């Protein structure tokens, strides 16, 4: 799906790795029984199907963790599948769950929990189950834990917090002279101060200063809008937003692109590539690209570092979200599968140090983040402040990562970067899209 914002990377080597065939014998034998597929049907292991939207570097880390999990659980056959990030994934989840036919467990963004209609499409998780697998509510940050409940039922298990961060090429930054004595990127204040750095970077790279995912513009918009203390609230048929602050945020995009400080079009993969090829000295994408960049460095994984988003409007707030596990609704649960599913989720959380180290995310499981290992982790420590500065998307059924607000405004921001739309027109278009969304009957509750 080329036209969806493609944040977490765009390359995924591992897709449905375990959907292996036992040969044509299987095709002849099973299949026509009405249920089940030819794949995996012959195994006597407990099969747990997992769907995720984690491609790219995240996908690689998750795959590695899955391999470890499988090695420790020879009786569980974990079958993980990665779908196109965003709408394709959520549509598949909802369509599958509506027929009781989705996976056993899936990863979603916590901001999307309400939008997938938990009461009808998800199965709640009981605290007893969690305890049986060694998890305790006290192991999670309270603010996040509360977001996992809908109507007093627990529907989600948070995996991490992730956010937009600012990566910088150490060598290029040294040339520009924007590193401090300890080799860290200096802090700036205000748009112009940062643009000056980008201009200097552009001189050196010959192409761009920074690179941003032009299809995922909502993230950048929300970060900057929130830096300016912009509020966005929705009621049943009305909304409030601060036009001036929104316009200021959109103008940043337009000016940056107009001056050639960033590409007019780049998806997540291209952004990362620009950064790697030194076509840009910075890249403002999610913390999830950390592993990709480390790998790119080969013998020199520390060729780059990362810090919080630059201060444009008075602080360093950024947009972010939490990956979480949910259980799509089942027509009926096989108790063994259910048990294996919770075991899988618990194991993944308990081993989420690797998720933080490799994926750059901040694990939600406190015993991991509070551990000394994690505290000593670099460069994760350099952007640890991000967690306090994370701004979650506004609360509405059409809002959240890859939800309609995100998607539709993303198309508009893409045109702003492409200089095909002025900031004023873009703001008007965004407001009109919001009004259209508000006018829609809420299909979730």
């Amino acid at each position, binding site marked *: *799906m*080329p*036209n*969806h914002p493609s944040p977490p990377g765009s390359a995924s080597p591992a897709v449905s790795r375990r959907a292996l065939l036992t040969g044509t014998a299987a095709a002849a034998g099973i299949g026509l029984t009405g249920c089940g597929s030819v794949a995996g049907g012959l195994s006597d292991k407990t099969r747990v199907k997992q769907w995720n939207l984690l491609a790219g570097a995240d996908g690689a880390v998750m795959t590695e963790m899955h391999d470890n999990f499988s090695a420790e659980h020879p009786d569980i056959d974990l079958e993980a599948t990665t779908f196109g990030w965003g*709408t394709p994934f*959520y*549509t598949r989840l*909802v*369509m599958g769950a*509506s027929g009781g036919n989705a996976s056993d467990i899936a990863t979603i963004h916590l901001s999307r929990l309400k939008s997938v*209609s938990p*009461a*009808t*499409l998800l199965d709640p998780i009981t605290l007893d189950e969690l305890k049986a697998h060694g998890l305790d509510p006290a192991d999670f940050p309270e603010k996040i834990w509360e977001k996992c409940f809908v109507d007093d039922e627990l529907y989600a298990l948070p995996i991490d917090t992730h956010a937009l961060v600012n990566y910088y090429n150490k060598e290029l930054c040294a040339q520009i002279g924007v590193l401090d004595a300890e080799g860290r990127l200096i802090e700036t204040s205000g748009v112009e101060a940062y643009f000056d750095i980008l201009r200097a970077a552009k001189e050196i790279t010959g192409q761009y200063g920074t690179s941003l995912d032009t299809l995922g513009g909502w993230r950048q918009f929300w970060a900057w809008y929130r830096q300016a203390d912009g509020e966005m609230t929705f009621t049943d048929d009305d909304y409030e937003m601060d036009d001036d602050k929104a316009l200021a945020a959109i103008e940043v995009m337009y000016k940056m692109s107009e001056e050639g400080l960033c590409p007019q*079009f780049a998806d997540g993969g*291209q952004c990362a590539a620009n950064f790697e090829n030194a076509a840009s000295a910075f890249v403002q994408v999610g913390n999830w690209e950390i592993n990709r960049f480390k790998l790119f460095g080969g013998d020199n994984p520390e060729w780059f570092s990362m810090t919080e988003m630059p201060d444009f409007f008075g602080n360093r707030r950024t947009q972010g979200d939490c990956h979480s596990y949910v259980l799509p609704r089942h027509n009926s649960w096989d108790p063994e599968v259910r048990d294996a599913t919770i075991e899988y989720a618990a194991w993944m959380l308990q081993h989420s140090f690797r998720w933080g180290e490799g994926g750059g995310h901040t694990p939600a499981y406190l015993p991991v983040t509070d551990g000394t290992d994690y505290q000593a982790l670099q460069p994760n420590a350099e952007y640890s402040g991000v967690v306090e500065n994370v701004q979650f998307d506004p609360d509405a059924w059409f809002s959240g990562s890859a939800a*309609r607000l995100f998607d539709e405004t993303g*198309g*508009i921001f*893409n*045109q702003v970067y492409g200089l*095909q739309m002025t900031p004023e027109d873009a703001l008007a278009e965004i407001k009109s899209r919001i009004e*259209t969304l508000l006018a*829609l*009957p809420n*299909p*979730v*509750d």
Partner: protein
Amino acid sequence: MTVNTEAPAAAPAAMTRPPTPNGAKKKQWAGLWFVLPFAAFYALFLVWPTFLGLYYSFTDKSLTGRPASWVGLENWAEAFGDERAWAALGNTAEFTLYSTPPLVILAIALALLVNRARKLGWFLRMAFFAPFVVPVSVVTMIWIWIYQPDGGLLNHYLQLLGIQDAAAPTLWLQDKNTAMWSVVITTVWWTMGFNFLLYLAALQTIDPNVYEASSIDGASWWRQLWHITLPLLKRTTALVIVLQLIASLRIFDQMYLMTGGGPDRATEVAIHYIYISGFEGYRIGYASALSYVLFILILIISIFQFRLFSRKED
């Protein structure tokens, strides 16, 4: 889109001439038993959903499965006032407008050529028709890659030929102005072969004597083409155009796979919007009403098609 050919000639013929041979056929229940299995499937998977959809269009049924309630004509009113729906129909029309001429003209031109290069017939037929049997996702995978702005095959050669400035590569699928054309080009490449075969077959039924007579009169090749060949291909052309119209109204696959309806909905077509409303937006009731609007449009064109071809039969 797969080109849809419902053997339109066959259908009306069967309709207008009910089987009456052997006059005194007795009423036999046996016939019912032969027809029943098909009729049962037909009732379950075609008739029933048709009515079910109509019913849903009067409710606010949601994909989430929460209880639905009757909303009367609300969905219908919304559908008729929905700018996005009209825009999607407009895009569908735009696609039809762009794709039909090349699908007709190219097919005729290639058929004329191949008809004269008979010794290569097998190879040429294969070359032009082969893309038609390739699954749509394979077609789009290949073309998305060809269209890649940076280093894709198309831009590479355009730059080599000096038509394109390397600093400003065309964003084929990401630019509002080129996205629809890009999908059209892919579609023409994919489905032209079917029309090409139709024309080739039609050409091969033309009696060569017709040309010989006019050659004696000294008619040039162009005159022959305009005054003999093309008029004789009229019927095939009418068929191709009607089939193209119907197929275009149902277009979905290429847009879904290549552009996702973008950029900025520039390639969002009718079925895609139904899919978006119903499955991405969970609004089964509303999507049902939208489906019915489209349904009626297709019905009108189908009836037109029926009339066109039953007249031909007479």
